C-alpha cells in the first residue's frame, strides 16, 4: 500500500518532479558548496596578484608537451608584450608547469579554523593558471569569484533571514491584533516601501561611516538590505494571517480550547511558511543584486576583498570589456544565481499551489 503523505510531502514530490527546479537546486548547491570550500577550490588567495599578468586571458590547459609527448595536464608560461598598436598581447612560452591536484600552495584556514595548504589544483611559481583570465592586477578571476561568492551568496541568505524574521513578527502582530496596531504597522511598511529601493539603499549607506573594516561593511550591507526588504514580506504575511485566522480549522481549534499561541504555532505559521518559502526564495536575488550594486559603485565590499559586485566595477569600461571580456564572468555568476533562485522560488510556489486551489473560505 502506498505510504500516506502529508501536504508537505506532496509539495516536495511535486517540487522535485520539476526538472528546472531540480537543476536550479543543484546549481545553487554547487555554488554554495564552492563558496564554503573557496579556499580549497581556488588556486590563489585574495591577496595574491601578479604584476606581470594584467588582463591575462584564460590560460589554455594542455595535455601534450611542446615536443608532442603526452605529459598530462599542464599550462605554459605567459609572456606579456605590446603589439604595433601598443596593445597588450600574451604569448605562450615553452616552459611547462604541470597542474598539481591537491598540491601545496598558500596556507589558509579551512572552514575558518583548520590550518591547511592544499588546493584543488595549482601550478608552481612562476607559472600561473588563470582558468577564467586575470584582472587589471593579474589576480585570478576564478579564485576571486569563489572567494567573492562567500560575500555575494551569504548576503542574500542572511539578509532574507533577518528581513523574514522582522516581516514574520510585524506581519503576524498586525494580522492578529488588527485594529490600531495593524494600521500603524502597515503605514510604516508603506513608508518604507514608498521610497524607491535603490535611493533608500544609497541614503542608508551614506548614513553609515566610511571607516569600517570589511566585516562591518558586510554586516552594514546586510542590515541595510534587510531594512529595505522586510516591509514587503510583512505585508504579505499580514495578509496571509488575516485570512488564515478565519479558516474553519483555526476556528475549530479555538472551540477545542487551544490557546492563541498554540493556534498560531500549529495552525497559522506553518501555512504562512509554505507560502513565504517561495516569497523568500524569490527575494534572495534582490539582496544579491543590491550588494552587487553597492559594491559596484564602491560603497560595498572594498579591495582586496572580493564580491561579485566589486569585481564588476572593473568592467565599467567598454574598452576594458572589449580587450578583456573575461572580466564579465562575475556578471555571469550573478546571473545564474539570480536565475536559479527565481526558478526554484517559482517551482516552490507552484508545488504548493495545487493544494491551495479549490479550498476557498466558506462559512
Amino acid at each position, binding site marked *: 500500500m502506498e505510504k*500516506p503523505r502529508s501536504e508537505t510531502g506532496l509539495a516536495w514530490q511535486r517540487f522535485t518532479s520539476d526538472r528546472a527546479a531540480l537543476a536550479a537546486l543543484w546549481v545553487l548547491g554547487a555554488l554554495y558548496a564552492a563558496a564554503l570550500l573557496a579556499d580549497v577550490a581556488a588556486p590563489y588567495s585574495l591577496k595574491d596578484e601578479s604584476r606581470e599578468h594584467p588582463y591575462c586571458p584564460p590560460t589554455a590547459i594542455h595535455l601534450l608537451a611542446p615536443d608532442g609527448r603526452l605529459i598530462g595536464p599542464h599550462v605554459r608560461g605567459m609572456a606579456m608584450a605590446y603589439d604595433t598598436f601598443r596593445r597588450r598581447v600574451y604569448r605562450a612560452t615553452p616552459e611547462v608547469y604541470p597542474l598539481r591536484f591537491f598540491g601545496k600552495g598558500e596556507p589558509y584556514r579551512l572552514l575558518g579554523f583548520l590550518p591547511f595548504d592544499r588546493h584543488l589544483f595549482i601550478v608552481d611559481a612562476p607559472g600561473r593558471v588563470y582558468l577564467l583570465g586575470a584582472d587589471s592586477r593579474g589576480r585570478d578571476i576564478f579564485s576571486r569569484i569563489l572567494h567573492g561568492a562567500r560575500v555575494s551568496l551569504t548576503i542574500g541568505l542572511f539578509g532574507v533571514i533577518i528581513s523574514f524574521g522582522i516581516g514574520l513578527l510585524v506581519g503576524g502582530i498586525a494580522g492578529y491584533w488588527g485594529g490600531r496596531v495593524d494600521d500603524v504597522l502597515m503605514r510604516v511598511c508603506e513608508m518604507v516601501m514608498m521610497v524607491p529601493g535603490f535611493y533608500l539603499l544609497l541614503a542608508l549607506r551614506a548614513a553609515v561611516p566610511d571607516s569600517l573594516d570589511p566585516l562591518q561593511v558586510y554586516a552594514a550591507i546586510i542590515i541595510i538590505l534587510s531594512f529595505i526588504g522586510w516591509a514587503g514580506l510583512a505585508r504579505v504575511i499580514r495578509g496571509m494571517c488575516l485570512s488564515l485566522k478565519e479558516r474553519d480549522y483555526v476556528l475549530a481549534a479555538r472551540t477545542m480550547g487551544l490557546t492563541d499561541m498554540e493556534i498560531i504555532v500549529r495552525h497559522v505559521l506553518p501555512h504562512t511558511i509554505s507560502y513565504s518559502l517561495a516569497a523568500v526564495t524569490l527575494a534572495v536575488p534582490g539582496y544579491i543584486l543590491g550588494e552587487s550594486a553597492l559594491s559596484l559603485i564602491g560603497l560595498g565590499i572594498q579591495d582586496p576583498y572580493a564580491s561579485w559586485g566589486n569585481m564588476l566595477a572593473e568592467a565599467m569600461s567598454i574598452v576594458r570589456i572589449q580587450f578583456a571580456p573575461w572580466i564579465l564572468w562575475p556578471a555571469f555568476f550573478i546571473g545564474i544565481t539570480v536565475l536559479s533562485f527565481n526558478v526554484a522560488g517559482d517551482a516552490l510556489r507552484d508545488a504548493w499551489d495545487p493544494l491551495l486551489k479549490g479550498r476557498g473560505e466558506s462559512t
Partner: protein
Amino acid sequence: MLLKLEGLRKSYPGGVTALDDVSLDLMPGEHVSLVGESGCGKTTLARVVMGLVAPDAGRVFFEGREFSSVRARRGMFCRKVRMVFQDPFTSLDPRYSVRAILGEALRLEPRMTRGEELARMRGVLALVRLPPDILARYPHEFSGGERQRIAMARALMSQPSLLILDEALSSLDVLVQQDILSVLEELPRRTGVTYLFIAHNLRAVRRLSRRVAVMRQGRIIECAGRDELFSSPSHPYTQALLKAAFNYEVSV
C-alpha cells in the same frame, strides 16, 4: 435544561443585525433544528454559542450554570459543547494526520495515556463508521463525506453533551448526505449527545429533530414541535418556507 440562550444580540460593523434578541432553550435529547434563509444569522448564533464571536448582549447557560462571558466558556463548556462546521474541506487542517487532528480535541480532557487516547480515537471512529486504520492518513486523502465524518469524530472526542452542526450536510452530495444522516440518527442512542442542528434541508430536519426554530433576520420567529410545525405552521414566513422547500423538493 441543557442549553439556555437568553436575549442574544449581535450586530456587525456596517449595521447588519445578525442576532436580534435571540432566546432558545434546549432540553437534553431534544435535538432542536434551526432553519431559516441564508444570511438570517444561523452561523452567527452558532459562533456566539461557541465563543468565537462575542455577543453585544445576552446570556448563555449550560446545564444550569451561567457561561455568559466568552472567557468562561473556554474550559468545561468547550469540552461539553462541540461544533461541526459546514465545509469539511476547510475544517480539517491539511497539515496534520487524522491522529493529530483527533488528538487536538483532547486538549481540555484530563491527561490520558497513549493507549487510552488511541482507544478513544478508535471508539469515535467506530461511531462515525470509519475504520481505525486511517489514523496515520491526512485529510486530503479522504472524500468530502469521509472528511465530515472525521470532523464529527473530532467533535465527539471529548464526549460532548451538545453538538452544534452548522449546515454540516450542505456541502455534501445527496447520497453522502443520506449516509451521514444515518450516522447522525444513531449517535444520540449510543452517546447521549443532543444536537443543535442548523440546516436548510427540511427532510433532514424532520428526521433528526423534535423541535424546530425558524429564524429570520436575526430573530427566532417561531419555535414549535416538529410535527406541529410541519403540519400547521403558524407564522406566514414559516408557511412560505415550507411551501418553497417541499415544492422544490417534490419538483426535483
